[in-house]
């Protein structure tokens, strides 16, 4: 099984690498288009700022490679946001796989949304054996709103938002499965069993 983790300027890729190692998988961390196209599974992690991350994807040409992938693909955190059409964060244009605009949490509460929160209305293979109301770990200031066809998990913080999205082979989670204890490990395993 070949698992590629996309390397770009988006913070802590190592934590995803370690999480896969704990599942006895040795991923390839790469920004090489051919390697990514040849992988059985592709993970698109990321924390931090949207603009340098997107600039980096443009520079490496991955901005054109990612939307054409046909194997199971998993965006994590910033990875989810960059798969959307655009984000309010510095008005960055995303990859457009989900037709959503990522927006900033209202200032009626503490931002970032940081810590363990529950997810519900779970749908699809990513959440096999995950109970409604399971806790996962979030750290983010922007969120993807709910959408009728693509939201496969919901979280409530100040507003209800998409904790996970799916369009065909493109899965994405706003939380960090690599930091979400046993629940997170199950979700990663579910993805790698697709």
């Amino acid at each position: 099984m070949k698992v590629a983790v996309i390397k770009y300027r988006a913070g802590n890729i190592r934590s995803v690498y370690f999480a896969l190692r704990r599942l006895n998988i040795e991923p390839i961390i790469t920004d090489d288009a051919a390697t990514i196209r040849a992988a059985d599974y592709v993970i698109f992690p990321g924390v931090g700022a949207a603009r340098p991350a997107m600039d980096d994807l443009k520079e490496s040409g991955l901005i054109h490679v990612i939307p054409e992938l046909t194997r199971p693909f998993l965006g994590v955190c910033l990875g989810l946001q960059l798969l959307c059409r655009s984000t309010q964060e510095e008005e960055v244009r995303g990859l457009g796989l989900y037709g959503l605009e990522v927006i900033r949490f209202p200032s009626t509460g503490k931002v970032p949304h940081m810590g363990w929160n529950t997810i519900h209305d779970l749908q699809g293979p990513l959440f096999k054996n995950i109970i409604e109301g399971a806790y996962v770990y979030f750290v983010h200031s922007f969120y993807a709103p709910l959408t009728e066809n693509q939201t496969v998990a919901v979280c409530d913080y100040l507003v209800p938002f998409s904790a996970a999205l799916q369009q065909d082979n493109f899965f994405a989670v706003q939380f960090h499965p690599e930091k979400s204890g046993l629940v997170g490990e199950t979700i990663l395993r579910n993805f790698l069993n697709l």
Partner: protein
Amino acid sequence: MLSKRIIPCLDVKDGQTVKGIRFVNLRQAGDPVELGAAYAGQGADELVYLDITATIEGRGAFLKLVQRIAARLNIPFTVGGGIRSVYDVEALLNAGADKIGINSAAVQNPQLIDQLALEFGSQCVVLAIDAKKERDSWLVYTHGGRSRTDLQAEDWAKQAVQRGAGEILLTSMNHDGEKSGFDIDLTRRIAQAVNVPVIASGGAGRMDDFVQVFQQGKADAALAASIFHFNEISIKELKTYLKNHNIEVRL
């Protein structure tokens, strides 16, 4: 619903976990990686590792330790202690830390907070404040509690958040090591002054202290060390207790 977090803190010196009582008198409390993994298994929500090694050689060893921690833990962890520069932070994040805590260096050079937030994002920048009550105000101390500054804790917290700190780790020096409860007034004051999460630290002794700091102190998370290291309170037992007091926790 977003849960309140329970965070064991591990002070690390020369590769071993130690806990300072009132910042002096260190006692051994085990291997940092094993201890951290055990806490994660018991339901700790996050961990904080504080490097209290002073030497350059010790720093390199800490970086290796951070890698071992990252490889092992499936929950987030923050590292702090002696961080001076963007370069230090980059090395620790690359080693696998999720967040970094800065204290003295940020007081000396507040722009460091802006730089770190810009470079790595606010979500990984934790401002640690050691505050000591003098008359009616809380003053900020640096260098492990050895140097007094003129900064008021509340003003400093606000400024740091404006500059990009994503979380405040607030330690009451008066309460630290005393096991007589958290400083509720200080915690509430800071938690209401800033719009980022506040971790209360210093003074945990009984399970009810945690109830108070969440309900009265408005803390988002609570940190403790010795009560966990010496098995005086287990994390599972504590979380069950909190849940029975209608505090949202991850069980």
